[in-house]
């Protein structure tokens, strides 16, 4: 079975532009989460989606948005890019909705975004 896939692998944008990152979860997984990982730091939680609905949001500005499609794939959109948005964007899929006991997350390889 294929793991979590993300596209593109690398992306270079300039300040003020918009970017769309894509994620396909493991087959059968219904939940997708997005993380931002700045070099040398731990991943920061951005969003979690389950069954096409937003179930969790981290402390990120409204320039960040996401959606999940009927096939459970997901897109992360970032508007008005800033230099500080340069990071590795990770997608993680899990079988279901995280409740009291966390579902195991499986991370994709990430998209490396560079903002110039």
């Amino acid at each position, binding site marked *: 079975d294929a793991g979590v896939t993300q596209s593109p692998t690398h992306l270079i944008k300039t300040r003020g532009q918009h970017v769309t990152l894509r994620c396909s979860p493991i087959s059968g997984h219904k939940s997708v989460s997005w*993380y931002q990982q700045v070099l040398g730091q*731990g991943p920061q939680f951005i969003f979690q989606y389950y069954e096409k609905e937003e179930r*969790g949001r981290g402390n990120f500005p409204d320039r960040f948005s996401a959606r999940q499609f009927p096939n459970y794939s997901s897109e992360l959109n970032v508007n008005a890019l800033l230099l500080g948005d340069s990071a590795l964007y990770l997608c*993680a899929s899990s079988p279901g909705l*995280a409740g*009291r006991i966390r579902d*195991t997350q499986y*991370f994709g390889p990430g998209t490396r975004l560079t903002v110039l």
Partner: protein
Amino acid sequence: GQQVMQIPQYQHVQEGEDFTTYCNSSTTLSNIQWYKQRPGGHPVFLIQLVKSGEVKKQKRLTFQFGEAKKNSSLHITATQTTDVGTYFCEDSGGYQKVTFGTGTKLQVIP
């Protein structure tokens, strides 16, 4: 907000030596997940701890959850060069509360 700190930030060990990273929280931890991230790679799930005082082992790795659920540790016995990477803990009290630790970067000298 919650802060999850890991110590040490960096650790260099000689191959064969033991290694321990500690995960400490400013608030009570809900569930702890541990991940390993190789250089240039993505986090890979290692283990989940749920109960106070829980201890789990995976070959040379021992994971522990503190009695007060405010800390956790990962201990590697007799490190190997394949253990190189950054180890992260993650606290998740449900989908509204997900916090990764600051990470400990392990370098193993052959």
